[in-house]
């Protein structure tokens, strides 16, 4: 367990919010690249395979870069 914890602690104190935004930008580029390559819209698993990033992370990252409704939240919270 100690070992698992140490391993996980490697990327230590990075905040999720920041890390996900970076992944979000990679996804945007991967989507464009894959669309050209495949001649159609890539599926989420295709993007995941291409970037070698788990689907879990892709889903969270997509959300992190999706801004539209947040204006509403900032104003009304």
């Amino acid at each position: 367990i100690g070992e698992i914890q140490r391993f996980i602690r490697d990327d230590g104190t990075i905040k999720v919010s920041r890390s996900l935004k970076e992944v979000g930008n990679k996804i945007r580029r991967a989507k464009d690249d894959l669309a050209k390559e495949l001649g159609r819209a890539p599926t989420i698993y295709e993007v995941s395979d291409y970037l070698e990033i788990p689907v879990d992370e892709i889903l969270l990252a997509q959300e992190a870069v999706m801004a539209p409704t947040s204006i509403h939240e900032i104003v009304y919270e």
Partner: protein
Amino acid sequence: MNNEMHLKFRAISRNESFARVTVSAFVAQLDPTMDELTEIKTAVSEAVTNAIIHGYENKGEGYVYISAWLDGDTVELEIRDEGIGISNIEEAKQPLFTTKPELERSGMGFTIMENFVDEMTIESDPNHGTVVRLKKKLSNAKAVFN
């Protein structure tokens, strides 16, 4: 591939994002395209926002309920609140119709939902709440087993 989930969360706007991710994580099991996923998320987001700001009048009280079913290549979603309800559904569905112009609402929520899914039905009981049902067939759906 058949699957089913039910979610209940507090009617506060910070949960809009949570609801979007949860629904997309569930629908991701059918391996949709990124665009299909965005359409579903956007439709759900509009329905959840409506529940919070119209159904519960943004008071921060009450719960929003989402159920989702995967059946073959089809996603069915139900977004429900126990808020004030809608007295005239046909009117509410009109593009640009809004009862909250002061919140800079666009009145386009139901129009967006209708455009992003294959079927939308609304059921509402004034003073008891509203249920929005959305159904969408995915273009290329296949079960992903991992």
